[in-house]
């Protein structure tokens, strides 16, 4: 296996070694080891406040580790890294926000940079190209505030993919979308990573919409963590160990439901249920 030819291909895009994040007295996670290969789809799960979003912020260069090291493509994370795309949760725009869908996508090119505005024809060509790739061409010229949540998310994904990043960070991108849009948006992200070998880190409180797509799951609970395939991590034993309390992992049809065994099965583990569908 130690062939030099393969080594280049297997170079991880994300590498965290003994990484610890702490805010004041509160330790979010410690000793985290994580290595993500290009094209890998990793879901990040866990209750609220366990540092899922903070992990993404470390990779965006917005939070700094207290201990350990982090590398993206063998470099330190830094703000405005074109190797990293970011898709947030859907948040409705003002209805009369004076900006079109394609303007939002164009921010992905140089929206963060200071300096005089110049009309760059190639940038707008790339905007057109990526809008077509995410299937948003028919509404890209409309004011963003008039679009549906699903349409807005497509455009945000287009923005994140504009610079052809090797790593796409998604922070609850399906939240507040209807089921049909949830499916369409996760399908879009998955097909894009297959085509362009983009690594995905996908923070979510509900694994089910993406269960069939993910390669591995990173599960964070109260400073501790577990990583592995969904079959390894989403088990009664593994999660009970992680939570330090008996947990039942149920498989109903194609879905995974996680419940606290001590709670008569009526309540979910965290305030935000892992399984939202009723």
């Amino acid at each position, binding site marked *: 296996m130690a062939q030099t030819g393969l080594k280049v291909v297997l170079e991880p895009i994300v590498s965290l070694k003994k990484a610890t994040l702490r805010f004041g007295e509160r330790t979010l996670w410690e000793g985290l080891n994580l290595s993500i290969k290009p094209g890998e789809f990793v879901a990040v799960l866990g209750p609220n406040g366990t540092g899922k979003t903070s992990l993404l912020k470390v990779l965006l260069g917005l939070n700094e580790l207290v201990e350990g090291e982090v590398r993206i493509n063998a470099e330190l994370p830094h703000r405005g890294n074109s190797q990293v795309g970011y898709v*947030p949760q859907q948040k409705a725009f003002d209805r009369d926000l*004076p900006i079109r869908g394609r303007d939002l996508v164009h921010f992905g090119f140089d929206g963060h940079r200071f300096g005089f505005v110049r009309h760059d024809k190639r940038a707008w060509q790339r905007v057109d190209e990526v809008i077509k790739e995410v299937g948003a061409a028919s509404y890209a010229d409309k004011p963003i505030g008039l679009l549906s949540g699903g349409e807005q998310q497509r455009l945000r994904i287009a923005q994140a993919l504009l610079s052809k990043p090797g790593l796409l960070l998604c922070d609850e991108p399906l939240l507040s979308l209807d089921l049909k849009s949830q499916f369409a948006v996760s399908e879009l992200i998955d097909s894009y990573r297959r085509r362009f070998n983009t690594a995905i880190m996908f923070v979510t409180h509900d694994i089910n919409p993406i269960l069939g797509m993910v390669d591995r799951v990173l599960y964070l609970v109260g400073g501790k963590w577990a990583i592995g395939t969904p079959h390894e991590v989403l088990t009664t034993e593994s999660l009970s160990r992680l939570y330090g309390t008996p947990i039942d992992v149920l498989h109903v049809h194609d879905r995974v439901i996680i419940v606290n065994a001590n709670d008569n099965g009526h309540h979910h583990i965290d305030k935000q249920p892992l399984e939202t569908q009723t």
Partner: protein
Amino acid sequence: MNLPFYLSQSFAQHALLAAVIVALICGIIGPFVIMRGMAFAVHGTSELAFTGAAAGLLLDNNPLAGALFGTLLFASIIGLLGVRDRERDSVIGVILAFGLGVGVLLLSYYHGFAVEATNILFGNIFGVSNGQLWALVLIGIVATIAMLVMYRPLLFASVDPDVAEARGVPLRFIGLLFLLVLAFAVTEAAQIVGTLLVLSLAITPAAAAQKLSARPLMITIISILFALIASVGGLLVSLASGTIKTSVSITTISFTIYIIARLFSHQRGRAKQTSLLTS
């Protein structure tokens, strides 16, 4: 009509130049003021321009320097507190109320010409001296260059702050920078329309422009154009009439443009709806 005669006089030419500069900078900042929900911040800044101008008048007979100091101080306080939107408005309200009180106190100690005091409130573009004019030009150029340099990240931060921050836009820094430019712009506008009527140049043209386009750059261009029509047009009207104060004609033209833009966009919206229904 003695308009051509007036226009050959240097006082009117100064006024015209000042009107153009003010329109330019107000036209540029307007769309951002609206997008960032900062109309109240503009109002607060201009009230503090009043306090500063009153202090400047009292201490050194220089209301312009005083106004600039007042607005910059106010902008720095708001910016450095780095308060969130909702809290920002209450902080502005608190400071603005106190600032106005101080301004009234300062004016009560001023025993010069009463007209100087009303000029602060309602503006007097024809009273601009040579030195003040160059100060206005300089402030205008600095503010315009600052806006051009930060246009992209400011737009990004105004539209989608979370993503902008993730992509590396320093939100607090750019917020503070915009407040400082706002202080410059308000100081300028206050010289022309007075501290009470600054919104007619800093908000109204941009609000009208937003009714006509959804393209950020186009809105900025239309907003500058409307601000120019209002300020230069208002100036010419008041020169020609001889009795109407400039601030009155400027606010009237500005308001009229807004009404027309609203009606136009309403009509267009209805036309679109009917075409959808019939197709």
